[in-house]
């Protein structure tokens, strides 16, 4: 696990930082891994929901009250109004009403033999195709429809999905910003751990400096240690995160049944997770080196 095993003049092995930093990096990696996994899984789910939501929608227009002929005319008018409204909505590619025969076919499983219904005032359906690349605010569309065309409703299930997508996106952003924040704090931690190390070992560093050691000779020892500690911590964090994620995934799959059949991460996600400890180690190493060199430059 430790990559650098060269002789060191600094008593870095025994100090508290050595025992502390790996755990901290482990926590950071754990939280990053959980957040990242959340981002990836959520991303996948959102994409699938999005595909469901975009594409085609259905609008129902309830038959207008009144006698059969009147009703039919007025219902047609309403459908036309709804189609006009839909076509003028940005992001809607096409909208056309479905004729009565087709509607009855759709209703057949519900109402059984439909021959008898032929003359009944039935709700009419409008097929809407929306641009999947644009995000149409279905919620707003639903409100507008309801308000301007009496009896018109947007298929409610998809409005729901659309709301979920939006909420999920917000959570996704939060998770991503948590990952970024953790990265920042990890750097800060390494900086301060290195500074503490510098303070604890100030005397040693002074002596090495006075004896004629190059700055890089001293910085190397800190950087190598930081790398080792960072890597150890990162791997530990990953080792903790893997079963945790596995358990959550398992629980989710068991509970959700068919709703979220594919809660697994894309391979890019797995690669990201595997790369995390190395990122942590490199971050630690670079930070330590930079911190030591800067502080040495201030010595006479």
């Amino acid at each position: 696990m430790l990559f650098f095993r060269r002789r060191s003049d600094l008593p870095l092995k025994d100090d508290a930082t050595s025992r502390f930093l790996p755990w901290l990096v482990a926590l950071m990696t754990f939280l990053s891994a959980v957040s990242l996994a959340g981002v990836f899984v959520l991303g996948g789910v959102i994409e699938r929901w999005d595909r469901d939501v975009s594409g085609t929608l259905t609008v129902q227009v309830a038959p207008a009250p009144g006698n059969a002929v009147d009703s039919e005319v007025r219902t047609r008018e309403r459908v036309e109004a709804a189609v006009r409204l839909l076509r003028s909505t940005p992001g809607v590619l096409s909208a056309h009403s479905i004729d009565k025969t087709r509607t009855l076919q759709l209703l057949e499983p519900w109402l059984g033999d439909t021959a008898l219904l032929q003359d009944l005032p039935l709700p009419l359906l409008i097929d809407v195709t929306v641009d999947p690349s644009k995000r149409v605010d279905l919620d707003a569309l639903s409100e507008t429809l309801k308000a301007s065309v009496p009896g018109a409703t947007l298929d409610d299930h998809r409005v729901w999905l659309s709301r979920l997508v939006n909420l999920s996106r917000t959570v996704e952003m939060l998770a991503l910003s948590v990952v970024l924040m953790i990265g920042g704090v990890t750097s800060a931690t390494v900086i301060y751990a290195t500074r503490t190390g510098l303070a604890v070992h100030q005397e040693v560093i002074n002596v090495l400096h006075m004896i004629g050691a190059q700055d890089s000779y001293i910085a190397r020892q800190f950087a190598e240690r930081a790398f080792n500690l960072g890597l150890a911590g990162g791997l530990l964090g990953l080792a903790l995160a893997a079963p945790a994620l596995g358990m959550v995934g398992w629980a989710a799959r068991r509970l959700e049944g068919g709703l979220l059949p594919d809660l697994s991460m894309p391979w890019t996600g797995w690669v990201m997770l595997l790369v995390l400890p190395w990122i942590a180690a490199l971050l630690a190493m670079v930070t330590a080196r930079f911190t030591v060199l800067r502080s040495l430059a201030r010595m006479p």
Partner: protein
Amino acid sequence: MRQKGSNQAESVVTFEEVGLRYGRGPEILQDVNFALPAGSFHFLTGMSGAGKSSLLRLIYLAARPSSGRIRLFGQDISRLPRAEMPALRRRVGVVFQDFRLLDHLSALDNVALPLRVAGARESEVQKHVPELLSWVGLSEYLHAKPPTLSGGQQQRVAIARAVIARPDLLLADEPTGNVDDHIAMRLLYLFEELNRLGTTIVIATHNEALVSRFNHPRLHIERGRVERV
């Protein structure tokens, strides 16, 4: 680079009108002028607080003069680029008044430090270091860490570390404060031996008995002025 000055060519250390004050404090040293010829052996004396350690600190680049000019091995240290300092420092061996041993390293590793920092081969280290440590009477303590050594033993490790790399200039600050007269004499002989091999030596000390027993010139600090006695 500036060419080596004509009359300072043989001087290892040259002070020209050097003054030193710490922060806004009083002037510890003022108008200090002297040159230490290569191969010379000087005692540095003065009351406690006179500025002996400060003067040595100026030479080993741990303090910067507030005025005047110091040359080390012919180079003006105020114009020395930072990157060249380590190389210069390796030519100077220092026995610090408070030893400054690395507590986590054995006596052997402490003494080996200047060799290792200079990139010496390990075989060389393993040959010379034990030899020198037995010379100062510590052959049984090669692997002892400083905190487990007595005061006098620590002081001898510090001296061994300062001389191991055969520096061109040796600065020793009160190197016999923690040893008895017998060992003090032995250490002085070590310094004389080194001096015979070409090392320029400056020893700051309070030990009047020791100073008077050896026939070496003396730099005396009094009220900030350095005088040759």
